[in-house]
């Protein structure tokens, strides 16, 4: 009953006109950044975070969350119409979605991804509703050793799924831990690695670092490659609704994609991108006609699109119950909660039930809004995609500049963004990924605190991580993931990545 009371309370919060408005703005902007290639949800949320300072915490988080799952809807539009992923989780949608568009079936492709996204998004919120409160209760029994081991596992999962070598991904995680230790040490109060620079006293800002690594560096790469003219398929205003045959083929992929996506989304480090890849691979494997994949199979659109939306819902679980972000987007949401004076984690449900239930219920509303919004707006997005990159990129850069400056009204943060933009560009050139660095930077301080508290607790013995059963389980799983590649060479992961066009987040 507790859950139904919570839901009821949540809807009272989420249905207030002001929150409906913020939800609408969030999903609208989310769809926009999803549609636009080269501007992902992480950079967009970082950019808009300062503009929510004046709003109430609930409204702010509802809007920022809307950007995240809204982007999952928008990304598929660009994949299908232009064969460029609008954002990273829609990379696989290009394969069959664009093939369908070339056969004149852009309408059903767009339709099934919108419906699939809606079904998966809603299903995952339903599971989130029932799972989050009980998980939060379990999490209450976690002490520092459990948190530390869980975070080790999270970072290991992230590096295990890395596109390039696992060694490089682990290096980026270690570098991220170092970046996270810049600023004041929370236990001793000492300044670390600030070198007398005022901006570094508060630590490296998450917003400038993300906008540098994912925003600026992306623009630099696009400029270098020179976006060639892409053919954009005109969409018929009618015919967006999939036929009965389409539905028959898509129903099971959507359901499978939802389940897969949700569980991969919950895992720290896996997330929407991996979920869409795995869903595609699964659909191809269970299909009676795997040779149809890549030539316009609707299952190849339905499965991954469902999976990335379900993953977006699942990713809220670790944030709301443990206070640990599962990916870069959740890392900013974590930052947003803390800026608004809330402590994400096991106690959030007790201390701020309006935020906890408000976010969850707003996702039911947001998903419904997206379904209604998305289909009629597709012709508008198609026109927007015709704007040449030469005109778009100066404005993307300008938004990054304003965003990094306005967090603390400090030019120093802009310089941090610039440094990480150049670093991010070089990292792409040298085949390093930004995601492990970001995640490690965010959870670094939490990990350090948990580690030091555990050691104080155990009087200096590392055995504490193995003598407590839950913690030992996490450590064992992490060790397995680290050792597995030595035996299997990660063939499956490598194969999944090479089978699709290149794109980063």
């Amino acid at each position, binding site marked *: 009953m507790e859950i139904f009371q919570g839901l009821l309370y949540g809807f009272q919060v989420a249905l207030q006109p002001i929150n409906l408005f913020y939800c609408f703005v969030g999903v609208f902007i989310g769809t926009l950044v999803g549609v636009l290639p080269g501007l992902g949800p992480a950079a967009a949320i970082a950019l808009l975070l300062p503009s929510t300072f004046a709003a109430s915490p609930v409204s702010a988080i509802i809007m920022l969350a809307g950007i995240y799952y809204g982007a999952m809807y928008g990304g598929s539009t660009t994949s299908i119409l232009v064969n460029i992923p609008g954002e990273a989780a829609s990379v696989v949608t290009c394969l069959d979605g664009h093939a369908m568009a070339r056969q004149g079936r852009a309408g059903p492709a767009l339709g099934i991804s919108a419906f699939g996204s809606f079904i998966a998004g809603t299903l995952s919120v339903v599971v989130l509703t029932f799972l989050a409160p009980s998980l939060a209760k379990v999490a209450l029994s976690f002490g520092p050793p459990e948190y530390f081991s869980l975070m080790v596992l999270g970072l290991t999962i992230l590096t295990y799924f890395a596109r390039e070598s696992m060694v490089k991904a682990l290096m980026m995680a270690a570098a991220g831990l170092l970046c996270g230790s810049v600023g004041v040490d929370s236990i001793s109060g000492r300044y*670390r690695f600030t070198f007398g620079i005022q901006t570094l006293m508060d630590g490296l800002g998450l917003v400038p670092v993300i906008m540098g690594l994912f925003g600026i560096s992306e623009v630099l790469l696009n*400029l270098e490659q020179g976006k060639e003219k892409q053919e954009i398929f005109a969409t018929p205003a009618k015919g967006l609704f999939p036929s009965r045959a389409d539905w028959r083929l898509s129903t099971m992929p959507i359901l499978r994609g939802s389940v897969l996506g949700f569980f991969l989304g919950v895992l720290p480090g896996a997330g929407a991108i991996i979920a869409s890849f795995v869903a595609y691979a699964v659909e191809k494997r269970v299909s009676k006609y795997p040779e149809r994949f890549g030539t316009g199979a609707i299952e190849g659109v339905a499965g991954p699109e469902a999976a990335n939306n379900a993953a977006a819902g699942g990713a809220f679980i670790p944030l709301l119950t443990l206070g640990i972000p599962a990916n870069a987007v959740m890392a900013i949401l974590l930052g947003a909660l803390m800026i608004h004076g809330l402590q994400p984690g096991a106690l959030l449900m007790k201390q701020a039930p309006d935020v906890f239930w408000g976010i969850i219920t707003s996702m039911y509303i947001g998903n419904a809004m997206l379904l209604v919004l998305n289909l009629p707006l597709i012709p508008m997005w198609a026109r927007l995609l015709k704007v040449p990159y030469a005109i778009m990129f*100066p404005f993307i850069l*300008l938004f990054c500049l304003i965003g990094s400056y306005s967090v603390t009204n400090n030019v120093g943060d802009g*310089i941090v963004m*610039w440094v990480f933009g150049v670093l991010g560009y070089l990292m792409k050139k040298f085949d390093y990924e930004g995601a492990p660095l970001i995640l490690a930077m965010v959870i670094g301080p939490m990990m350090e605190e948990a580690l030091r508290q555990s050691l104080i607790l155990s009087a200096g013995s590392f055995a504490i991580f193995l003598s407590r059963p839950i913690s030992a389980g996490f450590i064992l799983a992490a060790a397995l993931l680290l050792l597995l590649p030595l035996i299997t060479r990660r063939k499956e992961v490598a194969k999944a990545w090479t089978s699709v066009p290149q794109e980063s987040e």
Partner: protein
Amino acid sequence: MSRDLTSALFWLAFAIFFSIESLTQLKLGTLHQPGPGFFPFWAGVVLGLLSLILLLNSLRNQERLSLSGLKSWKLLLVAGALLAYLLLLETLGFVTITFLFLFLLLRLEYKGWVFSAVSALLGALASYAIFQLWLKTQLPTGPFGI
């Protein structure tokens, strides 16, 4: 030098610097009572060891380092423009520097003086309206008051 070798050397230097800094400037403390340098020191050691693994692996790799993109003057110009924007923002004021920045970058890829000038002006004024007037961001003002 292969790409992996070059980058491994960079991260190795990075790791050594942070580890030494943690060891000498901060305190490692004891295992009973870890100090502020404890965590970064070991993170640095892990990064260093991983860099060494990458370095050893890369020695077997014969690939030559080639960075075509770095030679592109266009990228240097964009990176320079970004830096110049940040350094001049508080002296020139938001609207002026934004106009100059947008104008320069629009001219870079998209030809046409008039188009670039008009779009840059509209872009600067529109972003001022959105961020300063509507979202109440505190943007720096220059000698012209905007």
